[in-house]
């Protein structure tokens, strides 16, 4: 593809140029208003600077920039010069950033703050300037960090072409204004901001410092608010009667309990979309308004993707039966960087296996039971942590719950759980065990601990390993 001057460029940049001709707004927010035309000018200038610094096809750059708009400009400039990029989040410790940089062979770190430079790796101060117009075309991409199941994070390479295909499965971004309260340095947040640009939508950038999400959405006429499960639960708990009106609220996660969906619809916004997806595949399915019920379905599979439910041997299972989820289609990553074992496990037989267990009903609606690796096997009974968590979270005193297995040489795995109480909650661990027993019978957690707060990472994901440690020496605690 060529730009207005006849220069070749990648399909992603060509797409943005089309939006520039239409006069669309690329980014908005407090103190931010920039059209696609100006965005592309800044990207081209940055690309020239990166090329002058020796960055091009074959380079892998680390980006340490927390500001939404600046990060997007650098990300697109890196794509423009054909480089691969990885986010080295400024909120992560140096040791962690250094480890990721070494894993992927980062050649240069682009940092807005000199303090974010890494020892032994060439640092490029942002903003860059100078350099000639880039005329080469190469297919760069983004390396995205995703949580691994064995402790080490997986790095997913997505070419800009794959990003474009994934973006098309988020068609509502095309004419909307997207706000994600999570920082752009988080994988999911960056990916969706890039999708939004690839679809011609407007990214509403995060303001500097603390902000009131609902007030900010109103002020900037946000049409889609994309939240993590924890953010959605917090906002719904603190809001009353459709605080966001017609703004679509998207919640990512395979297990969004029906009770929470109802709370969001009642308190936050009428238009709720629960999105199931992965970094490797992008959005897989979405349950929209009118599609939420007790089954906890995540909706029908997006066009362009084929999803199957199979048994351990790979044989397709009938509708309604729970088995391993596998999928294939355009835009799915091909494997992991420096993760041969995980690649062999997750990408095999022409399918991507996300590691989830689920079922498809007669109408093609997908329901996810949980992670195959998280499934608890108690004397041959398969129990999903999510089914325990949903029961515990339905208790009026419980704000959040996490179920996990306690390894037993006799019983295999024994389900146990940790809970966080709502303010003023008084229920005891023994009462909760009895309550769970009443609702779950043999599938109930045999021990429950009440914590002041469930341990979570910066993205709100519950840290089960930390919780497991609380069950490791039970006899000494009483």
């Amino acid at each position: 593809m060529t730009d207005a001057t006849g220069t070749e460029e990648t399909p992603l940049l060509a797409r943005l140029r089309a939006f520039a001709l239409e006069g669309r707004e690329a980014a908005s927010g407090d103190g931010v208003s920039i059209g696609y035309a100006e965005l592309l000018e800044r990207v081209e200038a940055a690309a020239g600077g990166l090329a002058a610094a020796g960055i091009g096809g074959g380079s892998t750059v680390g980006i340490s920039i927390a500001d939404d708009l600046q990060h997007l400009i650098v990300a697109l400039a890196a794509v423009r010069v054909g480089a691969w990029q990885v986010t080295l989040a400024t909120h992560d410790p140096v040791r962690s950033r250094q480890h990721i940089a070494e894993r992927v062979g980062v050649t240069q770190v682009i940092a807005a703050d000199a303090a974010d430079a890494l020892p032994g790796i060439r640092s490029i101060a942002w903003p860059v300037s100078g350099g000639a117009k880039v005329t080469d075309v190469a297919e760069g991409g983004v390396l995205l960090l995703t949580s691994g199941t064995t402790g080490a994070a997986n790095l997913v390479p997505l070419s800009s072409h794959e990003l474009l295909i994934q973006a098309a499965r988020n068609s509502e971004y095309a004419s909307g204004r997207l706000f994600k309260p999570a920082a752009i340095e988080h994988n999911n947040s960056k990916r969706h901001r890039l999708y939004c640009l690839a679809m011609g939508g407007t990214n509403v950038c995060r303001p500097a410092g603390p902000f009131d999400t609902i007030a900010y959405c109103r002020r900037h006429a946000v049409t889609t608010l994309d939240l993590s499960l924890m953010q959605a639960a917090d906002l719904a708990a603190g809001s009353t009667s459709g605080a966001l009106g017609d703004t679509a609220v998207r919640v990512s996660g395979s297990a969004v309990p029906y009770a929470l969906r109802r709370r969001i619809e009642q308190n936050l916004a009428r238009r709720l979309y629960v999105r199931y997806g992965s970094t490797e595949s992008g959005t897989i399915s979405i349950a929209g308004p009118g599609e939420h019920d007790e089954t906890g379905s995540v909706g029908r599979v997006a066009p362009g993707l084929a999803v199957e439910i199979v048994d351990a041997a790979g044989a397709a299972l009938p509708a309604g039966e729970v088995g391993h989820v596998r999928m294939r289609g355009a835009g799915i990553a091909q494997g992991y960087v420096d993760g041969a074992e995980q690649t062999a496990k997750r990408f095999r037989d022409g399918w991507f296996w996300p590691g989830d267990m689920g079922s498809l009903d007669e109408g093609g609606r997908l329901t996810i039971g949980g992670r195959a690796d998280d499934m608890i096997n108690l004397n041959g009974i398969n129990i999903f942590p999510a089914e325990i968590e949903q029961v515990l979270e339905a208790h009026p005193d419980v704000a959040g719950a996490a179920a996990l297995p306690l390894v037993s040489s006799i019983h295999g795995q024994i389900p146990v759980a940790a809970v966080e109480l709502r303010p003023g909650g008084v229920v005891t661990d023994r009462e909760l065990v009895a309550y769970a027993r009443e609702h779950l019978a043999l599938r109930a957690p045999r021990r429950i601990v009440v914590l002041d707060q469930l341990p979570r990472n910066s993205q709100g994901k519950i840290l089960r390993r930390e919780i497991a440690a609380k069950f490791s020496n039970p006899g000494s605690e009483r």
Partner: protein
Amino acid sequence: MTGADIRVVIADALVYASVPRFRDSAEQADFVAGRRDIRMADLEIDSLAAMELCIAIETNSGVSIAPGELAEVASLGALAERVERALAT
């Protein structure tokens, strides 16, 4: 974990498992307080209840006992003492 704690764990497990001889709340309270012991042979405990009892002990004390080993224990009091001894070593 004290002997009384262990007796509470045992009592709760038998209540959850609906063991017939353990439905009387006064009897439960007497066992927990150490005023009464119950012979295993009198418990009418089935395999499911035996499993629940062993799971409860392991989960709450860390002491592993296989359901088949319960037949070697004379009474619930003796079971509590066995767990207490295992914790002490």
